[in-house]
């Protein structure tokens, strides 16, 4: 019932139009390029060089040595010295610094009793009188910054007295598979494939159909014998190719610039990527049957894109989300793809490992295509 000739005619027309649409053509290449560089360099969950202030009330050689030691951790960088705590607080309000270290006048006495220096944990009555060496006040609104400052609480201080640090034996030994250097970018690059495809695939297809409405071409199209399904298929085929080009750009650049290698087989990668592209395209088609103009299509794309970025596991681990959010996340193709692509690229997962998510994506694509074809009626009203 489907005419390949009709589909081919639509595909050919789309490609001709695309070739003349320099802006869209440029976006196909520039979006993955720019996003990859931005995300790859900018997103870093490991926090370093937080601007901080110091209020040194003791102003001794010891306190200055302490400041140097804290700075040597690279977690903070002291940019200001203030005389009073009030000044430091105001600097935090003005966001000049995110945290301030307050070293009390009696820092020397506190230090000698501190377990971080003595290497002993409080045991006797005399030890319980030990107080913290100094105090941090920090802007807690950003939890990552706050966590980095908190991590400084147990900083060993033995070096201060040129003693070998007496670090306690760890409870657990941890061996990290995949990404042993803990580089954020290793997780970001494959995830970015999902985010960029979500954005471009949904947006381009939705716009491609809505444009026919906006320019009135639809009135001509529906007086021809073309069938809705032929139109839908013809519209998405060129974008399948475009999606694959984008994936190649992201993974290729990820490998060349960020040394993220692909652990799994390229064939598995191709299959799962195709599935995700199809799912995104069919979602774009469904959107196109609701949107009246390209602006609406864009808004609906963003409506899907934001949860795809935030809930899919791209930014935050899926496992850490509350159950409600997980249920919502599971309705997004990006969530399923995020599991798959990280599996294939980083952990060498094969088709059998990722089958449930892959089947979900396939079902989503078929459903989307069916809904879009049914909703697209050859009528103007």
């Amino acid at each position, binding site marked *: 019932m489907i005419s390949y000739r009709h589909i081919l005619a639509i595909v050919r027309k789309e490609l001709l139009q695309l070739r003349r649409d320099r802006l869209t053509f440029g976006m196909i290449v520039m979006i993955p390029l720019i996003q990859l560089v931005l995300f790859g360099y900018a997103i870093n969950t490991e926090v370093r060089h937080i601007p901080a202030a110091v209020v040194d009330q003791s102003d001794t050689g010891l306190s200055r040595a302490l400041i140097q030691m804290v700075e040597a951790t690279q977690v903070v960088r002291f940019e200001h010295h203030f005389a009073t705590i009030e000044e430091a607080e105001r600097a935090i309000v003005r966001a000049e610094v995110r945290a301030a270290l307050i070293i009390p006048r009696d820092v020397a006495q506190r230090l000698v009793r501190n377990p971080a220096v003595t290497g002993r944990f409080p045991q006797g009555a005399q030890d319980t009188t030990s107080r913290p060496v100094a105090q941090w006040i920090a802007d807690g609104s950003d939890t990552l910054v706050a966590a980095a400052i908190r991590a400084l609480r147990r900083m060993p201080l033995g070096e201060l007295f040129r003693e070998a640090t007496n670090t306690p034996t760890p409870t657990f030994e941890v061996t990290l598979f995949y990404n042993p250097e803990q580089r954020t970018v290793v997780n970001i690059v494959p995830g970015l494939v999902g985010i960029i495809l979500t954005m471009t695939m949904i947006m381009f297809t939705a716009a491609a159909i809505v444009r026919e409405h906006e*320019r009135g071409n639809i009135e001509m199209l529906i*007086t*021809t014998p073309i069938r809705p399904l032929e139109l839908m298929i013809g519209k998405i085929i060129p974008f399948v190719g475009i999606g694959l080009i984008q994936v190649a750009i992201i993974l290729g650049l990820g490998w060349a610039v960020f040394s993220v290698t692909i652990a799994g087989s390229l064939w598995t990668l191709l299959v799962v990527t195709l599935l995700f592209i199809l799912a995104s395209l069919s979602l774009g088609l469904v959107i196109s049957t609701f949107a009246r103009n390209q602006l609406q299509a864009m808004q609906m794309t963003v409506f899907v894109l934001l949860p795809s970025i935030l809930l899919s596991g791209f930014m935050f681990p899926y496992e850490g989300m509350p159950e409600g959010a997980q249920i919502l996340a599971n309705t997004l193709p990006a969530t399923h793809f995020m599991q798959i692509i990280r599996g294939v690229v980083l952990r060498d997962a094969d088709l059998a490992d990722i089958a449930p998510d892959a089947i979900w994506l396939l079902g989503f694509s078929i459903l989307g295509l069916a809904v879009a074809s049914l909703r697209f009626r050859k009528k103007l009203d």
Partner: protein
Amino acid sequence: MSDIVAETVGLTRTFGTKTAVDNVDLKITKGSVYGLLGPNGSGKTTAMRMLTGLLKPSGGHAVVLGTRLPGNAEPLKRRIGYMTQGFTHYRDLTVLENLRFVADIHDLSAQDKHRRIDELLETYDLREQAHTLAGEMSGGQRQRLALAATILHRPELLFLDEPTSAVDPESRRSFWEQLFDLVEGGTTMIVSTHLMDEAERCHRIAILDRGRKRADGVPRELMERIAGRVIEVSGPDLRPVSRKLTAGPGILSVAQIGARLRVLVSDGTDDPRGAVDALVRGFADTTTQPTRPNLEDVFVLATRDQGA
């Protein structure tokens, strides 16, 4: 009768509370040019969209080439051609690319496609523009492309919605020549227009106004049967004359055409010329002259009768 290609019975379409097409009956015979004459917003486009299956009628029905509408319009789409009011082919494709696209969608065989496109480029004088983007052509060239694309699959019945609105009088003449060539080949066409001279070229017309059919028939007969007389008034200062006439008894309409006033007098007036003469008596150098009614007079009369 088998030579009726399209017929509507009580065809009605509403948009919310607005009735765009109101209980319209039409009969279009094979091999004729049928004109839908009406001003902006009179429902011409809406009527055509219903006849081509693009819009569902809110009431009444139509039978087009034996297919009853509302109903499955899909088989009809291979037998009709619809040239929309605006240009709805692709502005970012060239003439040739547009024609090839239409040929593929209409399943012309490879050989036929090639021959047919060649023939159309020749007939519609588009060969030089074959590789020009449709969006970069003049209004007249684009109109010819639209016609070529619309008739590419050799439809039996052609719908043309204000086909000459974007072209100059010279191109309009040759465009109509081409339409009559098609009629000679056996095509029936339904053409909408708001131009009187264009309506006069049609075999039959229906006058539409605010969604209603006000009159229909052969243009010549409509002009002859008109229920009014036309008197032309000429003189040096026509504005005050016009104001006086408009208020006069039995005067249906007054329109200034260049240096003359065209006065439509009701059929009920015994001596139309005498009545006009009496009204213009006080004005210096003003003369009157009876003249033949034209389609515009028919239109004014038809839309005035039920309009009030």
